[in-house]
């Protein structure tokens, strides 16, 4: 018993099976996390090697190079980049996508073990660090405070950070911009000198006094008591009364030579929120956590946290990544809903019966929901890709059901009873339904095998489509016949509503049928003219291709902008703050309500703050975090806003460098702004510096370039104390003791920790701030020789101004400078790259130096190549499926050519709408291959059927065209209209999938119209030739036979003669 027969006979089993699938699907849906993109596995590893005291070039030669040479042999390595800075070498290994990062980590570790013995002795063991997208903060909160500013760190740490960290899924909570408490003991250098008490003495005395020491146990009578000395300070001021030395027989107290300031760290980051000082709280999720759920939990907790805070501390969400995700997902969900409505409407208009419409429509939810089971099983998430996949699928899942239903209806109309009609009607089309599903599989299965960045996106889509198609076919072969058997019946009398509503529609459809049949008839009689016209259009559309710009990935408008500003190196923090505040005022005045949050941080990060120290920081660096309202609530796109900000920054001559980052972080890859990157390889730093500056200034001249960044930073000014070793030796000192003395006076000596309420605070002893302000002050530092004699630094050496070489960057084992040009909104990446290439061609590049285009253009080229290969594989697979189905090589060939018209449709649509060619529109074009040939299959299949029934070529073509136009139009319209909501949606994130929708609509519309005319004409040519060939062959055969009959005897004799 076939599947459809048993389905019709066992309606309960069939419907319950599908309900079970739906239940599983809905259960999975409820468990699925929501995210913006599919989980992109990390493909980078970093290797940190600390080598204290080594300069950048020492690090490069002694650490980075040996490590690079060894690590280069790790498998699947794509690029190896390194930064050699003072004290540290950072090597970034970028692997090909799709390999298990844990295995790669082990490989890297093995290689490091091999090489570590050849590293300098002083160098620490290399540390492997895995960077993943999970480390990107999911929520950034701004904190405004007034009186509580000085105690802000403790307040936030106790009342916000700790409770938040306890929320399930939250990885780490860090506080930025709120300096930690520190007890500073500022020594007066002149008094110290007078009393002859050095910093070291004071610091060791404080350390020795601030102790609790257990004295053991002792017995009194029957009891044992413990003995303790409790000397820890209860109040920092107690330290002032310590005796730190004697002078002329009198005690010298600490208060005589120093003052105590119980305040905050001297060097720290400061954060300003909307012009007011405050702090930022950064929440990161645990690896694999559900960002949306976590940020929901965090937001729910906020009111409670606010209650615990002092009244002047105001807590607000500044950046919430889940907002963008939710808005995007909501927009996409509503396009899915719209698509479903459109599809159901189309089906209703064409079929004119509500029962038939219900039967078709019910397959949509079942097939779509089934894909959630796959997502749940493989740990996927609801994201842009999986949702757009659903949106694409809606139009296609109904196709199979429509074919089955149509045939069952025709059986019923011929007089079969519904049960039999359902079984036999399905039986007749089952093979072609399966074949058409196989063509879809031929398209989507190869998608699961794409590697690289686009592979991450397409893998999920490919699998989901395959599964949705499988379920939809299963439903078409079991659920649809079952429902047809139960619900359809021969309509003997039309209802009044049906007549008034449906008759006009039917009339229009009938007219289209007739007109189309006439057109096909004409085309059949003017085959070559028709073909010439079709290919003419194809050539015209190729001309349009010149006007289409390309980019890698559409920029995602998430409302976030990051601005990173650099003042000249060494600018004081006060100066940076002032510039930051001016910019804040400028932007807040201009954008007003459009701005949700605008805050900046400046200053040197504390070593303990991992989040802050991962990014660039320093007193001269200002980093802005700006959040705009969602894209559908403002007129200007984020790209334009960024360009405006860049124009503003040009008016601040005091800025040495500025970088406005769309989306909040650097990276033109996915979702960022188009950026043309040029890599200059070469060993000589001076030449590469010169070339990079030349290239950057030429690029800046072009009005389409809004910002140019050079990756190599400027030489940093620094003071060097150049000790004279002989003089040091005369005083019984060596270089490190002398340097330590200096460090203790300037940076401060960490004397001890002051404990209060279970928290520890640093107690630092150092010179008064006003005694640390000039070269003179440095030169006058007093240090003590081994005999206790004081001596000034200027007697031991000299202080000179010097420049520190910048970080040495390398890529693939060569020194490199990267020049990034950010392009203005609406400028295609290809234009930027071409412009840059033209400049490079004109430049005089010395031997040994090469300039290459890299960055997102390289990614784009890679993915274009991948997609190109994919398209070829798909074409071959589709051809194989069709050739097997038709048992012919010519008919599939006719259909494959119709793919050309899909291409011209895509090109025309992109050209007319001014959309860029990117990964999303290419994806759409690839999917078209399957959808387009499906239309052709339907036409050719029926033409062949009519020919088998004995009709002539022209009659068969016209007959097939007339009879199959409605199904073809119907399946095409469901797909096109299913895409319309995607193509026109204006909501948050719509810019991501609009190119996909436009490409599919354009390609499908043009290719369907062309297919309807071109396929019959082309079929006519091939079939006509076939008939002629066959006739010729028959004629030849007949002539041969006649000849044989006439000359049988002579021919046989000839043969015999030859034998002799």
């Amino acid at each position: 018993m076939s599947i459809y027969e048993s389905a019709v006979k066992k309606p309960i089993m069939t419907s319950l099976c599908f309900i079970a699938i739906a239940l599983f699907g809905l259960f999975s849906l409820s468990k699925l996390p929501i995210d913006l993109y599919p989980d992109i596995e990390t493909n980078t590893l970093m290797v940190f090697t600390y080598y204290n005291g080594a300069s950048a070039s020492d690090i490069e030669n002694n650490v980075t190079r040996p490590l690079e040479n060894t690590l280069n042999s790790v498998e699947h390595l794509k690029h190896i980049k390194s930064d050699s800075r003072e004290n540290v070498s950072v090597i970034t290994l970028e692997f090909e996508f799709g390999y298990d990062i844990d295995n790669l980590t082990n490989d890297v570790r093995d290689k490091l073990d091999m090489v570590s013995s050849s590293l300098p002795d002083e160098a620490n063991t290399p540390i492997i660090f895995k960077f993943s997208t999970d480390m990107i903060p999911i929520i950034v909160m701004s904190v405004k405070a007034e009186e509580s500013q000085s105690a802000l760190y403790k307040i936030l740490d106790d009342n916000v950070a700790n409770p938040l960290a306890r929320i399930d899924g939250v990885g780490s909570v860090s506080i930025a911009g709120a300096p930690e408490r520190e007890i500073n003991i500022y020594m007066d250098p002149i008094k110290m000198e007078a009393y002859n008490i050095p910093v070291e003495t004071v610091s060791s005395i404080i350390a020795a006094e601030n102790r609790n020491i257990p004295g053991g146990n002792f017995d009194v009578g029957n009891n044992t008591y413990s003995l303790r000395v409790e000397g820890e300070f209860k109040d920092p001021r107690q330290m002032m009364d310590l005796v730190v030395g004697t002078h002329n027989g009198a005690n010298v107290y600490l208060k005589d030579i120093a003052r105590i300031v119980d305040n905050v760290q001297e060097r720290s980051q400061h954060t300003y929120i909307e012009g007011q000082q405050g702090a930022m709280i950064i929440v990161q999720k645990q690896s694999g956590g559900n960002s949306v759920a976590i940020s929901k939990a965090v937001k729910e907790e906020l009111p409670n946290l606010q209650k615990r805070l002092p009244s002047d501390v105001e807590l607000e969400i500044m950046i919430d990544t889940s907002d963008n995700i939710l808005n995007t997902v909501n927009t996409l969900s509503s396009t899915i809903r719209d698509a479903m409505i459109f599809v159901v409407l189309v089906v209703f208009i064409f079929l004119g019966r509500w029962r038939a419409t219900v039967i078709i429509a019910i397959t949509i939810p079942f097939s779509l929901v089934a894909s959630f089971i796959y997502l749940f099983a493989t740990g996927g998430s609801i994201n842009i890709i999986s949702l757009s996949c659903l949106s694409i699928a809606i139009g296609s899942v109904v196709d199979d059901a429509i074919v089955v239903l149509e045939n069952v209806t025709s059986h019923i109309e011929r007089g079969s009873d519904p049960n039999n009609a359902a079984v036999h009607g399905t039986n007749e089309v089952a093979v072609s339904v399966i074949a058409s599903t196989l063509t879809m599989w031929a398209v989507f299965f190869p998608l699961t095998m794409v590697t690289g960045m686009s592979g991450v996106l397409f893998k999920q889509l490919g699998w989901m489509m395959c599964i949705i198609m499988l379920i939809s076919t299963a439903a078409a072969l079991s659920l649809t016949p079952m429902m047809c058997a139960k619900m359809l019946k021969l309509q003997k009398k039309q209802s009044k509503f049906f007549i008034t509503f449906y008759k006009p529609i039917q009339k229009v459809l009938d007219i289209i049928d007739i007109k189309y049949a006439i057109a096909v008839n004409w085309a059949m009689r003017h085959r070559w003219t028709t073909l010439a016209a079709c290919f003419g259009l194809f050539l015209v559309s190729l001309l349009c291709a010149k006007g289409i710009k390309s980019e890698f990935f559409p920029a995602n408008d998430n409302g976030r902008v990051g601005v990173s500003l650099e003042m000249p190196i060494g600018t004081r923090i006060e100066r940076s703050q002032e510039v930051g505040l001016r910019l804040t005022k400028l932007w807040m005045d201009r954008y007003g309500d459009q701005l949700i949050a605008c805050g900046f941080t400046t200053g040197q990060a504390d070593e303990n703050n991992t989040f802050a120290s991962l990014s660039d920081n320093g007193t001269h660096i200002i980093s802005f975090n700006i959040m705009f309202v969602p894209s559908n609530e403002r007129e200007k796109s984020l790209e334009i806003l960024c360009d405006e900000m860049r124009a503003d920054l040009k008016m601040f001559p005091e800025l040495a460098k500025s970088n406005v980052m769309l989306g909040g972080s650097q990276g033109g890859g996915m979702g960022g702004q188009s950026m043309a990157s040029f890599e200059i390889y070469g060993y000589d730093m001076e030449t590469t510096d010169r070339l990079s500056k030349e290239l950057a200034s030429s690029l800046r001249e072009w009005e389409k370039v809004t910002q140019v960044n050079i990756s190599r930073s400027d030489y940093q000014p620094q003071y060097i104390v150049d000790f004279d070793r002989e003089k040091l030796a005369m005083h019984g000192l060596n270089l490190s003791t002398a340097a330590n003395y200096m460090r203790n006076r300037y940076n401060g000596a960490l004397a001890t920790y002051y404990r209060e309420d279970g928290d520890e605070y640093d107690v630092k002893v150092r010179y008064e701030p006003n005694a640390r302000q000039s070269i003179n002050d440095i030169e006058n530092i007093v240090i003590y020789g081994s005999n206790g004699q004081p001596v000034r630094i200027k007697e031991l050496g000299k202080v000179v101004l010097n420049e520190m070489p910048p970080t040495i960057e390398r890529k693939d084992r060569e020194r490199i400078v990267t020049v990034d040009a950010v392009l203005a909104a609406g400028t295609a990446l290809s234009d930027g790259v071409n412009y840059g290439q033209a400049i490079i061609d004109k430049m005089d590049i010395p031997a040994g130096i090469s300039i290459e285009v890299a960055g997102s253009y390289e990614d784009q080229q890679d993915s274009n190549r991948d997609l190109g290969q994919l398209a070829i594989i798909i074409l071959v697979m589709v051809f194989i499926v069709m050739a097997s189905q038709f048992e012919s090589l010519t008919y599939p060939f006719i259909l494959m050519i119709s793919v050309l018209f899909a291409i011209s449709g895509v090109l025309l649509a992109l050209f007319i709408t001014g959309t860029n060619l990117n990964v999303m529109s290419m994806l759409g074009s690839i999917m078209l291959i399957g959808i387009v040939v499906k239309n052709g299959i339907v036409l050719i299949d029926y033409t062949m059927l009519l020919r088998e029934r004995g009709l002539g070529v022209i009659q068969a073509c016209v007959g097939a065209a007339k009879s199959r136009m409605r199904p073809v139009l119907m399946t095409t319209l469901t797909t096109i209209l299913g895409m319309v909501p995607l193509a026109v949606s204006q909501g948050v994130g719509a810019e991501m999938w609009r190119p996909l929708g436009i490409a599919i609509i354009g390609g499908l519309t043009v290719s369907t119209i062309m297919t309807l005319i071109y396929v019959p004409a082309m079929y006519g040519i091939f079939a006509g030739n076939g008939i002629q060939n066959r006739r010729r062959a028959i004629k030849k055969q007949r002539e041969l036979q006649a000849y044989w009959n006439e000359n049988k005897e002579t021919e046989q004799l000839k043969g015999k003669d030859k034998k002799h």
Partner: protein
Amino acid sequence: MKSIFITFDISHKEKIVDMLTHNSCRGYSFFDQIQGRGSKTGDPHYGSHAWPSMCGSIITIVDDNKVAKILKDIEAIDKETPQLGLRAFVWNIEQQY
């Protein structure tokens, strides 16, 4: 005793069997999925790509008095859905065991 050979579009099968039962005719032999075409009208039933539908046939041996009624019923079914195709032929049974 007469033999009735009924040949029909396969989707008639249940109706024919019901009709025979209704006429208290218990025994029959059914040939499933056979090919055929009508002498004058009616689509061929080849189970092929061009003509996907198939025939079924039933041979039943009935008492002489039942034949007229059965043929009448068969005609009624055929009139209802002339496009599907349904024919019946009757001949004598010479012997049986």
